[in-house]
């Protein structure tokens, strides 16, 4: 099915199931501990052995010597595969560092061996017996130092108008530098795989992965085998956030271990290995200059940012949103990815925008203050309904102003603290802050297959559910389209035997995959119409599917009676046409925060969080709300506690576990409210839906930072806003008050 123009009015505008709250259909399995995650498949591949990985303890250099003799002799050990035993594996397009093979070490904790034994304890014990010697090479790990040496920030991605002239003549300007820390996905389920490659031919993989088709191809490339010989299953994924978009070492080690031992092998990355072995969100340093007239209208943006990457990677592009979020005729943005030999940086939830808006939305707060304007009104004044770089390109839908107004109203913004540091309750300084959020609404082609037998429908697609609610919204889409009850629909996901979907990532999954399921259901309706024997042949469009029945001219038939008991199977995919390129299709939000900051210790406590979102048709308000809550919670960590600390001598993240890397815990999170505007976007998909899972993290860190400033009068431009970044300013203010 081609989607070549905006949708007209359709069944989703009068939906019974889509857009309505429905509890997760995978909920019963999850709350009872019966949902099978990758490492837990005792039901597949009999005779599994356990693989334990060994990581490099240098950041850059060569391995000169590895001795696994003692490990091989250890009890229960079936095989040891060291990186020196294997020719360098091909590098899949999605991987920057080689995952295994050869003597070159490209980053700390890169996998250099796997020990396969009958139990975890024995594999781990034997892994400790492997001797490794390295020839370490000098390398660069310090982003600040690298930035100082840079002469310029590279070619701008956009350079419109005359930024320098606009800044030179503007009455109100800002020039400030912001820093975001490197962050870890820290999903609760470690990367894990069971691989059966016992015969070195067909490979079956049970893993925890967001993108089945990409990862299958990456495996084919890595091992130089036919993709058709590889089968992947990933029905339940214990969180991803971008960290499981790619093929990673767990799968590669399990495959090599399986081939070496001639048995299925399972490997889970130990938590302390994950932070340096897998990917992370790069740190950024961002310089923002904004110019405005006395009336508050922005005349120029200049946003330059650096991030770090292993050579060949792309880092964290923090400037992209600045191209289109606000009006202003002059703008320049440039991102420069600096080569460092830290572990591999790659995508994490809202890659780019999460970091970019963390800076831009503080800058907007600072500008509003300089202009003596309400930061809400300042943003409303600088709203745009067209792409500022290309005024002929409109936003398909943009209700950012409504988000701001609705949020201000619900939050009680009028009653906010208006004097930084001016409101106090005992030892606590109370502050209010807000920020805007923008994230694109991309869609990818997505396929599905549906099987109808005796009135029950099975949906099969390689789409994944990483907690996002895919199972449920896909069932809702199929039930709506086929006129069935939710109970009559079974959804099967995350299997390479099913049609290729968009997968889960980039906030494209929900919108794309449901559109693909809709396409498959329409194909099924055509098959059904062709089977009906009622005089003149009816077209599918002349039929209605309602409450388990097929209705039309001379037709009134139970869906259960179609096909004489035989299964009817149909498959199709949604293909999104070029017309979208003439539009800016995005999602928007306004975030409002109340904090309390301890006047003496600088401890920051969140007291209220509110998000108002403009994100197309919300397919299921329960699961969509949870996605936004999750984004807000992850953003609370990004704002106040999360940061990978770099050992600048040895080149690794030192706080590489869940004690040292501090994600938000329950006690950190206050009352949270999420509001969705009713804004179906016909240009997005037939369901008029957009993604929401990444929008929720965007802008929130800045809203928190702005609230902290409002509470204390201390402007912190470096994340996370830990007590050490606040106490000095608090003491200074106390001394002067």
């Amino acid at each position, binding site marked *: 099915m081609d989607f070549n123009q905006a949708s007209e009015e359709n069944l989703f505008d009068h939906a019974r199931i889509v857009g309505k709250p429905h509890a997760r259909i995978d909920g019963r399995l999850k709350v009872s501990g019966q949902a099978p995650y990758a490492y837990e498949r005792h039901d597949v591949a009999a005779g599994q052995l356990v693989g334990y990985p060994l990581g490099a303890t240098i950041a850059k250099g060569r391995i000169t010597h590895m001795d696994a003799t003692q490990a091989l002799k250890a009890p229960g050990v079936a095989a040891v595969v060291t990186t020196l035993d294997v020719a360098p594996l091909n590098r899949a397009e999605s991987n920057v560092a080689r995952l295994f093979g050869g003597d070159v070490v490209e980053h700390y904790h890169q996998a250099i061996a796997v020990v396969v034994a009958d139990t975890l304890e024995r594999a781990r014990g034997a892994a400790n017996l492997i001797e490794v010697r390295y020839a370490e090479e000098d390398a660069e790990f310090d982003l600040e130092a690298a930035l100082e040496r840079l002469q310029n920030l590279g070619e701008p991605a956009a350079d419109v108008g005359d930024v320098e002239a606009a800044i030179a003549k503007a009455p109100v300007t800002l020039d400030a530098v912001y820093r975001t820390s490197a962050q870890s996905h820290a999903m609760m389920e470690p990367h894990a795989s069971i691989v059966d490659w016992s015969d070195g031919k067909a490979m079956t993989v049970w893993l925890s992965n967001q993108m089945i088709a990409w990862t299958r191809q990456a495996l084919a490339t890595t091992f130089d085998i036919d993709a058709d010989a590889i089968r992947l299953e990933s029905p339940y994924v214990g969180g991803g956030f971008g960290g499981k978009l790619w093929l990673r070492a767990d799968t590669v080690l399990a495959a090599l271990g399986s081939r070496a031992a001639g048995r299925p092998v399972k490997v889970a990355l130990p938590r302390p290995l994950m932070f340096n072995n897998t990917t992370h969100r790069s740190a950024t340093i961002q310089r923002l200059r904004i110019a405005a007239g006395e009336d508050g209208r922005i005349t120029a943006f200049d946003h330059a940012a650096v991030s770090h990457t292993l050579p060949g990677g792309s880092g964290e592009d923090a400037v992209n949103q600045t191209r289109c979020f606000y009006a202003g005729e002059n703008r320049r943005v440039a991102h420069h990815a600096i080569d460092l030999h830290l572990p591999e940086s790659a995508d994490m939830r809202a890659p780019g925008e999460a970091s970019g808006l963390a800076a831009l939305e503080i800058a907007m707060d600072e500008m509003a203050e300089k202009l003596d304007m309400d930061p809400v009104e300042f943003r409303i004044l600088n709203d745009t309904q067209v792409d500022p770089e290309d005024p002929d390109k409109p936003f398909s839908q943009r209700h950012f102003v409504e988000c701001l107004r609705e949020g201000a109203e619900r939050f009680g913004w009028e009653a906010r603290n208006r004097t930084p540091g001016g409101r106090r309750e005992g030892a606590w300084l109370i502050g209010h802050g807000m920020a805007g959020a923008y994230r694109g609404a991309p869609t990818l082609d997505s396929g599905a297959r549906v099987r109808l037998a005796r009135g029950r429908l099975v949906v099969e697609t390689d789409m994944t559910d990483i907690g996002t609610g895919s199972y449920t919204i896909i069932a809702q889409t199929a039930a709506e389209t086929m006129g069935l009850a939710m109970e009559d629909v079974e959804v099967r996901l995350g299997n390479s035997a099913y049609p290729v979907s968009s997968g889960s990532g980039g906030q494209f999954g929900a919108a794309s995959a449901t559109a693909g399921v809709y396409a498959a259901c329409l194909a099924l309706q055509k098959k059904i119409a062709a089977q009906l024997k009622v005089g003149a042949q009816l077209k599918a469009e002349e039929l209605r599917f309602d409450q388990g029945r097929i209705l039309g001219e001379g037709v009134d038939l139970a869906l259960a009676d179609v096909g004489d008991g035989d299964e009817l199977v149909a498959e199709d995919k949604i293909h999104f046409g070029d017309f979208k390129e003439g539009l800016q299709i995005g999602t928007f939000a306004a975030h409002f925060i109340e904090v309390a900051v301890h006047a003496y210790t600088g401890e920051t406590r969140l007291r209220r969080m509110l998000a108002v979102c403009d994100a197309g048709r919300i397919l299921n308000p329960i699961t969509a709300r949870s996605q936004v809550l999750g984004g807000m919670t992850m953003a609370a960590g990004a704002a106040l506690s999360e940061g990978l600390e770099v050992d600048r001598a040895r080149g690794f993240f030192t706080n590489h576990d869940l004690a040292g890397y501090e994600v938000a815990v329950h006690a950190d999170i206050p*009352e949270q409210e999420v509001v969705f505007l009713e804004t179906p976007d016909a240009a997005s998909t037939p369901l008029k839906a957009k993604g929401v899972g990444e929008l929720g993290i965007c802008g929130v860190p800045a809203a928190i930072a702005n609230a902290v400033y409002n509470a204390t009068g201390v402007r912190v431009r470096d994340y996370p806003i830990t007590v050490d970044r606040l106490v000095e300013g608090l003491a200074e203010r106390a001394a002067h008050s």
Partner: protein
Amino acid sequence: MHPPDQLGRHRDASAACGDDHSPCTLHVNGTRHDLTLDNRTTLLDALREHLALTGAKKGCDHGQCGACTVAVNGTRINACLTLAVMHDGDEITTIEGHGTPESLDAMQQAFIDNDAFQCGYCTPGQICSATAILEEIRAGLPSHVTENLSTAIDLTDAEIRERMSGNLCRCGAYANILKAIHQVAEAHS
């Protein structure tokens, strides 16, 4: 056995690996299991690998995330931080002992009713902890935020949040977990 090398490592493989086994009886969800386990096996791995009870999750294996929370003789514990052989004869309750998909207990149902999870990986640990904290509060066990140690403990948001803070949820379902726990507490009161 060879003497340790300069890094203190023993070069004799079997000795260095500490490959000793012990018999151990675990009573899990009311069923007796007689096992012979490698002494290094954690309670969590005994459950997951030897008894195929994979409801308790391994998120960190270091007592940092709470995904492995189970009850031992009625007290919640991180099953990854304790060796199975230390629990000879103990009564252990895992998420599988709370209810099945066909017959959920009140807390499991409350988690569904309030969408108190997304990916589901931390969920069994959250439910085991949630169940336990209501008992802890009822029993008068104080927490860091308990204001008055001489009266019954109020079931406040702060009490619940504090006591649940050993169970990380990276999907960020805390606000909904809080509601689920209140739902169960109110039904019982």
